[in-house]
């Protein structure tokens, strides 16, 4: 959607033209729904998050000043709503201490570089489950940084803005999350290599 077209639709929606807001919903819903899937990991919760996000966006439409893209503003609302939901969730998370340890350079174990193994060598669904389970076990503030920065591709500065964090804080959380997930994948790959070579 072009910037001018988006600004026009937002202005029309602000003045009460429902069709314009509906058009904005149809154009941005894919992004918000998929963000919900990544953060909350099920379709029902992603749908509910999408609905809450648009209702909140509608209620606060007049506070949208157009300093960022409309979709970015929606991402911010959706992420904060998802964070509230995740905090209520009692699921066991990996401790911040473990994340700190995994990411400390002196603690990095010498591990084989598994990146030369073709993905087809491993069971894709199994790998997906392991990776997503590891992502889900990250504390919510780490998970949201990983999803927004590494999976959705937002720059550090935008993620910091969306989550009301400093840029160094986002970088630290991003680094720790990456190192933890890398280690979880390495465990999986190493087991696979052992099994293939008859050692496991």
């Amino acid at each position, binding site marked *: 959607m072009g910037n001018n077209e988006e600004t026009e639709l937002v202005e029309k929606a602000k003045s009460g033209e429902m069709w314009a807001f509906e058009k904005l919903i149809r154009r941005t819903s894919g992004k918000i729904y998929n963000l919900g899937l990544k953060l909350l990991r099920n379709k029902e919760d992603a749908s509910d998050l999408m609905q809450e996000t648009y209702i909140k966006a509608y209620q606060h439409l007049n506070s949208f000043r157009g300093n960022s893209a409309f979709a970015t503003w929606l991402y911010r609302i959706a992420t904060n709503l998802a964070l509230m939901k995740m905090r209520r969730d009692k699921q066991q998370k990996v401790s911040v201490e473990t994340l700190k340890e995994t990411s400390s350079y002196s603690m990095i174990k010498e591990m084989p570089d598994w990146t030369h193994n073709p993905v087809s060598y491993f069971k894709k669904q199994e790998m997906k489950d392991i990776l997503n389970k590891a992502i889900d076990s990250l504390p919510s503030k780490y998970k949201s940084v990983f999803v927004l920065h*590494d999976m959705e591709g937002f720059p*550090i500065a935008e993620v910091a803005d969306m989550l009301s964090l400093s840029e160094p804080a986002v970088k630290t959380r991003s680094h720790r999350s990456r190192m933890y997930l890398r280690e979880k994948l390495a465990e999986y790959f190493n087991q696979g290599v052992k099994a293939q070579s008859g050692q496991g």
Partner: protein
Amino acid sequence: MDNELEDELRSLMREHFLVCRKCMSLLNTMEKTICFSREMNKAEKVPSKVISRVCYEIHVRYEKKEKK
């Protein structure tokens, strides 16, 4: 990886990666971890009934607001 380094520091790091197997492996595995996380979670289409439900909810609220 995030394209946030100054050119000078980036080329110093590149030189280091050529001689340090540990760091090279760290970089490769980290990049691949991110790549897998993206690949394994491809975008899904929003069910049209979900979009309709959201639009309906907003309509109801709009109408209420206008009646007030």
